[in-house]
Each structure stands twice: as C-alpha cells, then as structure tokens.
C-alpha cells in the first residue's frame, strides 16, 4: 500500500467523534499535549449531523485549555494577557468567557482542526515561555511595586534630570522631603553599567539626589560591575522581593534623615 493511502487510512481509522453532551461532539484524534493527554477539541454539532460544505461549524475547547494552563501559569498581568491575545490573533482563534473557538466551513473542517489543535497546544505551552516572560515582566512587576508601595513619594516614571541628556534616564523618580531619589531596575549587565554611568553623570553635574537600584538577580551581575555600581549608587535591593519588603522603610529613613 502506498504511504499516502496508509496515512489516509490510519488517520481516518483513528479519528472519531463521541457525544460528550447533546450537540457537543468530542473529537478523538491523535493530537496530544506534551504530557500525553489528548487535546480537548469539540464540535458543537448534533450527533451524526449531516454537514453542508458551506455550513459554519464551531471547533471549541469549552474552556479546557485555559483550565489546563492554570495548573502552572496565571494570566494575571497585562504582559501575559498581551502574549496570550497575540497568540490567539496569530493563530486565528477567538475567545469568549474563557472558551477558545474557531468557526470554519464544514468543507474546511480538517485544516481547521489542524489549525485549532496547533493553536491550543501553543496556548497550553505558554508556561514554557514563563521564564522568558518573567524576564520581560521584571520591569512590569517593578513598576507595579513602585506604584503600589511608594505612591506617597510621588513616583514619576522615566525622568531625565540633566537637560539635553535623554540618554541619562532614571526608571523612576521618587521624592523624599523635596529631594529626588532616582530608582533603576537592573535586569542585566548592560543595565547595571548604564545605571552606573548615569549615577556618576548625575554626581558630576552636582545634582542633589539619592539613588537606588533594584536587581532582578543580584548574583547574575559580574563582580566588577557590581563593584562599580556599589560605588556609584546609594542603595541596592538584591531582588524584587527584597524591594517589596524593604522599600517603604528605606524611603521613610531617607525622608527622616533629610528632614533632620
């Protein structure tokens, strides 16, 4: 038997529909998640429906993909939502109340099934992007922490205290008793060096200020860069967790010391 015939026969033999609920048929097909579970795909049609090729048919997951994703990942930030929405748009899926679906003509049911299953697999694998998204999320989380915890210090994002030097930007300006405290988020070595240069430039320009940096991972910055940064800035928070825990006390102490 020719390979094409074998494939057609085998795939055809494998695929079947089972009525899950009235007017909801579950598709049993050799399409699996990484853990070996079959991808949950449903056709919202009656059992044994006769389909006209032009008829619209809905492929749906009935909410099971986001349920699966939630085992390990919550779409609880703007950035994660953005990544999720982009994935849906790029793969032609729609979403309503947590249900992912794809409407297709019955005449294109097979390619739509392939498209839908690939997209569902990507959604359920969003957690694999977690590390990459976490890296990009660092600044988002830092921003959220600053706004949540330090609003009493009038946080202003992305300030350039030296006229004409928009290359010497601080991520945040806080104000403690009229004195600016410039805050830098440090995600990597490049940013560590930029923060060092920036703080040194502020000092050379005789600005009156305090400076603080928040590391995503203190241990990831090379020793010499840490040494330079330590020399240039006034305070280092070794992690976002430490910043969340101690930033309010830090700002309170700054305010007190500047008062006296």
């Amino acid at each position, binding site marked *: 038997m020719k390979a094409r015939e074998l494939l057609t026969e085998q795939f055809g033999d494998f695929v079947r529909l089972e009525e899950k609920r009235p007017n909801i048929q579950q598709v049993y097909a050799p399409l699996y998640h990484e853990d070996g579970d079959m991808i*949950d795909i449903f056709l919202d049609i009656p059992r044994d429906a006769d389909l006209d090729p032009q008829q619209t048919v809905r492929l749906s997951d009935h909410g099971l993909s986001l*349920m699966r994703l*939630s*085992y390990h990942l919550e779409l609880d930030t703007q950035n994660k939502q953005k990544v999720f929405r982009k994935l849906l748009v790029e793969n032609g899926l729609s979403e309503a109340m947590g249900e992912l679906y794809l409407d297709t003509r019955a005449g294109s049911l097979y390619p739509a099934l392939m498209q839908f299953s690939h997209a569902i697999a990507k959604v359920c694998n969003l957690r*694999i992007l977690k590390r990459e998204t976490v890296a990009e999320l660092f600044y988002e989380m830092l921003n959220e922490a600053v706004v949540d915890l330090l609003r009493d210090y009038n946080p202003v994002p992305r300030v350039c205290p030296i006229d004409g030097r928009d290359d010497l930007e601080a991520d945040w300006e806080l104000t403690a008793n009229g004195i600016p405290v410039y805050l830098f988020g440090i995600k990597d070595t490049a940013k560590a060096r930029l923060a060092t240069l920036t703080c040194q430039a502020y000092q050379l320009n005789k600005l009156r200020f305090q400076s603080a940096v928040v590391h995503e991972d203190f241990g990831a910055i090379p020793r010499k860069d840490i040494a330079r940064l330590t020399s240039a800035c006034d305070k280092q928070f070794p992690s976002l967790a430490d910043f969340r825990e101690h930033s309010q006390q830090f700002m309170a102490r700054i305010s007190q010391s500047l008062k006296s």
Partner: protein
Amino acid sequence: MRFSQQQLDELVNTPKRVSKAPPRELRQDSQYLRGELELTTRDDDLMFPVFIRQSAVFDENFSVGMNYTDRESGLTFGLIRCNGKHGGQKEHPHHAGFHVHYMQADDINDGIPDPRLVVQTTDYASLKSAIRYFLRRVGVPEDEIQKYCPFEQPTLFEM
C-alpha cells in the same frame, strides 16, 4: 539541577501537612471551577502548591495536582496529577478513564516540565474522592484529610 527518580518519588511520598487549607467551595473562573491549597513537609522545609480544577461545562473533567519549585534552578514542574475522564491519552487513545500523571526523572532532566507517565486508576471516581485519594497519595495523614475533606456517603454516581 538533575533529579533522580528516587528524589522525585520522595518528594511525592514524603509525609506532609496542610499548611494552607483548601477552600470550602471551589470558585468559578471563566469556564472552570478552581481552588488551591498548600502542603508542606513536616519540618516546614519544602512547600508544595496544590491546585484543584473542574470544568464548569463537563464535571467529569477535573484535575488535582501538586507542583514543586526547585530552589536551585527556579524551575517549577508538576510532580503528580490526578485527572478525571477528559478524553484519551497516548497509551489509551480510544477511551476516557480516570488516570494519574507522574513526573519522571528522565523527562524533567530533559527539560520537559509535564508529568508524562500515565497510570489508569480505579481508586477514585469523582473529584471529591480524587482529592481524598490525592492527599493520601502524597502523604497527608488521615485525620487532616478527614478535617479538610470529610468523608461523604458516595452517591450512586460515585460508586
């Protein structure tokens, strides 16, 4: 960090206590119901978040699982997961059955964070009995299980 199968088995089997209680009722989140609890080892050294999920559309589709975050690498992965009848799996592609997923050392060491070993089970037949089975399986003592998941007379559909 690389894991041995023995280490993974110990993480599953080591006695634990409920450090953060499960909710009395699952809450709805879009198309599914959810709840979380937390288990810790007796010496409070290790913490394991546990999730409970049940489809609001198909109540036979449920999942109770325990995750673990390796301190050294920061990697979070599933150790064990009890599933309801959601459809086929690679080993049993043609019918839905209650089954348990286990993490294998070879998989996590190859960077696959999903528990791929699937074992069919008849040890539970509903979400409630799955939760009790799960807690027993991961080393929570019976008195705590009874405290948080009191035994109920099974309905006809659970028998």
